[in-house]
């Protein structure tokens, strides 16, 4: 549904997007993952045709972006509707740009996203969550086949975020293709397909499960342990430790295969002054994300 081949974009002679190729199938939720300044927004803007790529081609639904304008919708990272216009005025404005006149459909859209009570409210007066819903509704006004969402849940509370993701699944089940950028790990895990970029380069691509194997041959150990800087630096000093990742009271240690569980436990016992019990576990996406980003940076 979305095919991008060798996209390149430079700003001030620095390559921000470097030979990115993507192939997104119909009905998929495709996640573009990467740290800040990785080039996610630049990629999504080039896919939507609002930024000119220096090189490379994009096809949507088998045709050029210009010809496919009616086939896709886009929700930018920032609220891009008109604050001075009401919810309904915004929706009908975007609908009419696509030649959509079916009011019943538009009213149903408002209903579906709980915006009906705010029909006459000025968009600028909506809360963050409702602004996001309005943006989504405006992008859906012309019933597009493809939806581009640039960090759709950034700064959104967990309840609204869950509602939005439930809806993304529903849209995907209706056959729509969703292209989502994010740096939330739990969101990445919800995507059907992932592409991981850092500093404009493609690092890994595939299902969330297969991305986890992108770390290569590693062990991931988990232990319930409070954060202590001495402990972290002692572990990271061991030859072959890839990274440590603290989640509250839980510590993940990613190591090369040559580092044994016993070797780690010995070091940790010495620092902590009591025995530590490590358990082998699966890497989660965050481990992969940090390890790959660090690897790219070094």
């Amino acid at each position: 549904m979305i095919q991008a081949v060798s996209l390149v974009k430079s700003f001030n002679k620095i390559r921000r997007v470097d030979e990115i190729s993507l192939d997104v199938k119909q009905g998929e939720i495709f996640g573009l993952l990467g740290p800040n300044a990785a080039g996610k927004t630049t990629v999504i803007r080039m896919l939507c045709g609002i930024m000119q790529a220096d090189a490379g081609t994009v096809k949507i639904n088998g045709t050029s972006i210009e010809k496919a304008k009616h086939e896709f919708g886009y929700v930018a990272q920032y609220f891009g509707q008109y604050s001075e216009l009401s919810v309904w005025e915004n929706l009908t404005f975007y609908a009419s740009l696509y030649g959509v006149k079916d009011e019943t459909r538009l009213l149903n859209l408002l209903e579906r996203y709980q915006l009906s009570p705010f029909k006459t409210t000025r968009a600028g007066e909506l809360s963050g969550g409702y602004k996001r819903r309005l943006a989504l509704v405006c992008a859906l006004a012309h019933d597009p086949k493809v939806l581009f969402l640039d960090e759709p849940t950034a700064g959104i509370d967990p309840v609204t975020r869950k509602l939005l993701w439930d809806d993304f699944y529903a849209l995907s089940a209706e056959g729509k293709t969703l292209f989502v950028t994010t740096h939330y790990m739990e969101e990445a895990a919800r995507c059907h397909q992932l592409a991981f970029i850092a500093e404009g380069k493609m690092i890994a691509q595939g299902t969330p499960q297969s991305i986890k194997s992108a770390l290569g041959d590693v062990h991931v150990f988990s232990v319930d342990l409070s954060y202590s800087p001495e402990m972290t630096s002692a572990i990271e000093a061991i030859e072959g430790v890839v990274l440590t990742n603290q989640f509250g009271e839980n510590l993940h240690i990613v190591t090369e295969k040559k580092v044994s569980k016993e070797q780690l436990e010995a070091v940790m016992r010495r620092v902590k002054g009591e025995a530590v019990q490590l358990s082998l576990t699966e890497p989660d996406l965050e481990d992969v994300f940090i390890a790959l980003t660090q690897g790219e940076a070094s």
Partner: protein
Amino acid sequence: MIWTIVKKELIQLRRDPRLMGLIIVMPLVLMMLFAVALKLEPKNVKMAYLDEDRSFFSELIKTGLWSDGYFQMYEVPDEKAIIEEIRAGRASAGMYIKKDFSDLLTQNRQPHITLYVDGTMPSLTTAMKYNSSAATDADVTNDMYFLDENDTTTVIADTPFIMDTEVLFNPDEKETWFFLPGVIGTLIMQIALILTGITIVREREQHTLEQLFVTPISKASFIIGKLLPYIVITLIDFYFILGVGWLLFDLPQPSSHLLLFALAAVYVAVMISLGLFISLISQTQQQAMFVAIFIIVPSILLSGFIFPIEAIPEVVRAFSYIIPFTYFVEIIRGLLVKHTLFIDLLPAYGALFGFVIVFVTASILKFKRTL
């Protein structure tokens, strides 16, 4: 706390080259304009004259005026032509010396000469009247006393001849006649430049442009859709201001309503297209406002709206002719006060139309449907 903010602001300023241009280059340019353009007295004011006498004495008067350096003089074939030259704007002053001037002079009969001055710009009128005294200076009149030693009854007048000053077009030298027509133009300029100047950059700043560019809307419909409301608003405003001038300020009626409408249309088009161009080259509303003000202030100073163009030295005067407002001022005074013939206003209309083409072309070249 304050110092932290000050330091941050200074760092930001240092890293924004455009802002530096605006806070340093703009004041410099404006100060130079104020200092150079506006302190100097008018020079080379054009005077159309007719000298039917062609005597030694009439030459004396002309030389007196000419050597003062204020008037630049050229001859016209008849008395009517003097007034026509002033009406068309080719001259600001005129002088008529009748055939019997030297005859009357030698008989000590105090002949009259007529000085015509354009009354549409009262400040220039005053200056011209003052400078015309070069014609009645002692240097000139010294040789004009004729005393017959044998005739003791002859009474010698104080002045050998009398210069009558006739103020044309605005005989009462009403300041409102001078300022009001131009005020309409400055208001339209400010409204159009500021309204359209921020229109697109505002969409860019508020991220609505990004959302809009995704839709199938074409370049042309976007631009036209954006500009049309402003064109209509500004045209209505033009006649609103004009109406207020007619009702409350004794503004004269135009020689032709059709030509006045043509002026309104082409001038609004110039300002809106210039505003559009400003909006396209600016990244923030603040920048657009700065650029607009940067255009408005010299326009007011250099257009002849307040200070006669003749008062601006040649070097700076070149700028006057690249300012659209200059042509507006010329046309509107021609239509409302002097009733200048269309043929004499045609070049100014042409210049305004040329500006429209330049600004529209520049905008088309600058406008891209991508971020």
